[in-house]
């Protein structure tokens, strides 16, 4: 009330967004399936590394409080080089958001609506994201707050329901580390670290708008750990109910696991619940990436991002369809190309390159301003 419409989100909202962001597409596609019954260990390792990565992101942001990723890039690399790198980031964010959207569309069209054109799903989803972002970051944060209890309880309940349906077989988790740590580490880097944890690089656009910036680092690391824990939980459910062999073959593991639920002869066929969790996760994820891209464009093109929300999201709807001709191509790109040539440079290499430059420049600036001040 007293504070007039500054686009701010609270720490809790940040945590909520990060959480749904993390579990969003994990709930669709599942992670670490290559490591079979040790997937959960792989996720655990990746969570710890991911938390470190996020801490590093926030550490970078702390050097220049109140400025987002794009402003930081221009600060470090100068106006023109900064704009080019920023534009690359914009393309990266938008591309990934289209990919995430496509993931969801594939889920809906192959599980629920076999005859509905995938295009319609894509348009409606991106329409929601656009509407939400048009209303602003605050609305985004609050929407997350409204849905988080449901998302959270549903995920927990699905696990419990599987447990009580008698489909939960701990022995599917054995043998633990049969082949040693080698294959796990190979899987963690680059694939598990970059997806879903490294993708948090997008939050470098959002974190500067948090109202208690000082605590952002603690909260984000904590959130990543919690969401990592939930992902481990989900993975354990998947392995224990489906078995490692089957989990490897299913396209949507959590959904398949939920299909095993049968309680009281009445609570069965609860796939819908999963679709809800997934749907909100996807909306969050697409919106966060979209917001990242839009903020970048705002910075580069110098116009308020609200003008761009609708046109750009329409492009996302189009690109999500064009991105690949079929599911196999989509998944193959996701495994072979994206982690190595897109995630790693944008999530790890550029931030690491930026760090020394940033620290050096900030120090220089400080010295100069100190000198100015003493004069």
């Amino acid at each position, binding site marked *: 009330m007293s504070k007039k419409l500054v686009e701010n989100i609270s720490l809790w909202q940040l945590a909520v967004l990060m959480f749904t962001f993390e579990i969003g597409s994990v709930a669709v596609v599942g992670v670490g399936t290559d490591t079979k019954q040790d997937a959960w260990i792989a996720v655990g390792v990746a969570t710890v590394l991911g938390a470190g990565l996020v801490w590093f992101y926030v550490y970078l942001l702390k050097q220049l409080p109140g400025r987002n990723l794009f402003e930081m890039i221009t600060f470090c690399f100068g106006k023109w080089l900064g704009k080019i790198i920023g534009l690359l980031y914009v393309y990266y964010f*938008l591309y990934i958001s*289209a990919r995430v959207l496509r993931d969801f569309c594939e889920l809906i069209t192959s599980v629920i609506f076999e005859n509905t054109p995938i295009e319609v799903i894509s348009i409606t989803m991106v329409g929601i994201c656009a509407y939400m972002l048009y209303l602003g970051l605050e609305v985004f944060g609050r929407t997350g707050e409204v849905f988080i209890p449901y998302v959270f309880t549903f995920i927990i309940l699905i696990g419990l329901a599987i447990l009580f349906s008698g489909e939960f077989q701990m022995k599917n988790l054995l043998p633990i580390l049969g082949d040693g740590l080698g294959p796990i580490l190979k899987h963690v880097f680059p694939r598990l670290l970059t997806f879903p944890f490294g993708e948090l690089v997008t939050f470098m656009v959002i974190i500067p708008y948090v109202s208690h910036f000082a605590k952002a680092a603690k909260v984000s690391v904590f959130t990543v750990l919690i969401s990592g824990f939930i992902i481990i939980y989900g993975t354990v459910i998947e392995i224990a109910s489906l078995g490692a062999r089957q989990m490897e073959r299913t396209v949507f593991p959590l959904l398949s696991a939920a299909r095993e639920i049968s309680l009281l002869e009445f609570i069965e066929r609860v796939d819908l619940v999963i679709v809800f969790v997934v749907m909100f996760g996807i909306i969050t994820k697409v919106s966060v990436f979209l917001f990242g891209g839009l903020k970048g464009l705002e910075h580069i093109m110098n116009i308020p991002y609200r*003008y*761009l929300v609708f*046109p750009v*999201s329409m*492009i996302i709807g*189009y690109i999500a369809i*064009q991105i690949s*001709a079929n599911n196999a191509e989509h998944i193959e790109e996701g495994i072979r190309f994206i982690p190595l040539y897109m995630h790693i440079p944008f999530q790890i290499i550029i931030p690491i390159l930026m760090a020394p430059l940033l620290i050096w420049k900030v120090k220089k600036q400080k010295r100069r301003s100190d000198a100015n001040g003493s004069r």
Partner: protein
Amino acid sequence: MLKNRMIRVVTFTFTMIFSGLLLMIALIDMFIWQQSFYQCVSKLFALDEGANEGYVIATAAAGFIYSIASDYRIRKKKRSQQS
């Protein structure tokens, strides 16, 4: 601020993003499937008959029209501010 810059900012951005992303997809396809650039681009623009691509194309076109409209709006706003 916008005075000396391109007037049609939104449309420009739209085109830039649109073509950029298409180019990106084509490049990725090239890289993964070892196809020629021409093949990839033609794959992008080939309309699959019977598929409902019309929907998304219509939406993208709507986005384009919207961007032109908002450019027009920005210009009008700016004029009214100047006068």
